[in-house]
């Protein structure tokens, strides 16, 4: 499992484009929103948490299709499923690799980009924390839906229609952590719910995805 995870991470890093592309996408979001909303800090600051979180969500969507697509094309996925690893383990490794190659760069880029949006200092302190706790849920949800749409050509649109509604709870709690921090309230409660979502997704979705993988590769 670990070997598979390492291989996926290495492959993604070697091509390099996935991580860079999603960070670039987040940058695009951060640049376009002020152009639409206006440059005043007082209009940007309150929506900054939402922009960052929605940006991260959309940026992670971009690379979801790649989770299984390349391996399926090459026939590697069939070999993997036939191999000694149960499909849920493969699914979990894939989600982990997606998080490392997409989620992690986004988390590292977000605090820098948040400055451009005048995110308040109180919220900024919690930003990385909320992303670290919340983005695993996004990767697992995305991986599950990528497993569902594995064989569909141009499945990207359907994939995003499937993934985004499922990410609503993550988004709500993720933004609420920052909003509460901004207001000086304790953000522990939404942070707990966020962690709960990530744990829940990590516990159940690999099995669901494993089932979908087997159904898809019969």
């Amino acid at each position, binding site marked *: *499992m670990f070997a598979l995870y390492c291989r996926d991470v290495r492959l993604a890093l070697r091509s390099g484009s996935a991580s860079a592309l999603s960070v670039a996408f987040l940058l695009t979001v951060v640049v376009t929103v002020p152009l639409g909303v206006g440059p005043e800090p007082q209009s940007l600051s309150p929506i900054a948490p939402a922009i960052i979180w929605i940006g991260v969500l959309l940026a992670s969507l971009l690379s979801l299709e790649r989770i299984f697509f390349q391996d399926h094309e090459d026939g590697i996925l069939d070999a993997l499923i036939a*191999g*000694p*690893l*149960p499909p*849920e*383990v493969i699914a*979990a490794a894939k989600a982990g690799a997606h998080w490392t190659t997409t989620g992690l760069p986004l988390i590292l880029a977000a605090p820098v980009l948040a400055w451009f949006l005048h995110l308040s200092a109180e919220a900024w302190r919690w930003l990385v924390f909320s992303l670290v706790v919340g983005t695993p849920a996004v990767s697992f949800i995305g991986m599950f839906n990528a497993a569902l749409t594995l064989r569909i050509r141009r499945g990207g649109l359907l994939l995003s229609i499937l993934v985004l509604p499922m990410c609503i709870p993550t988004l709500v709690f993720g933004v609420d952590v920052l909003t509460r921090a901004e*207001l*000086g*309230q*304790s953000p*522990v*409660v*939404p*942070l*707990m*719910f966020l*962690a*709960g*979502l990530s*744990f*829940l997704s*990590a*516990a*159940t979705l*690999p*099995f669901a995805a494993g089932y979908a993988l087997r159904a898809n590769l019969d």
Partner: protein
Amino acid sequence: MPPGLRKRRRKQMIVLAILCLASATVVIGYGAREGIEFYRSPTQITQNPELSRDETFRLGGLVESGSLEFDGPVVRFSVTDGAHTVMVEYEGILPDLFREGQGVVALGSLGPGSFVATQILAKHDENYMPKEVMDILKAEGVYRPPE
């Protein structure tokens, strides 16, 4: 060898999943216990002032009739829940639906002698709705399944 390994990996995976599920339960349970509170009542604050010191929170209750006074830009009024009353100080524009005798939620912290609010929300639940419609809507709730 492969089937044995497969079984072992699957077992490890299930153990891991159970661990994750358990952590999810613990974390959500903890959050749910803390999270029910959306605002504190004046009673909670007067009876246990230590709990609310140095913390920003929401204070909720009714604006006491006749307590509202303006002092330049500063507004003072009392929030009551029947049993206890807390003085609130606020500088800024009150929402349109702010009325004496109506519900209010104030965000802020305990200052010397009174609660210093940074944001005031009027609770205008029933205000813009005819009562009969409200009753029907309530009855409607009886038939909706818990989603």
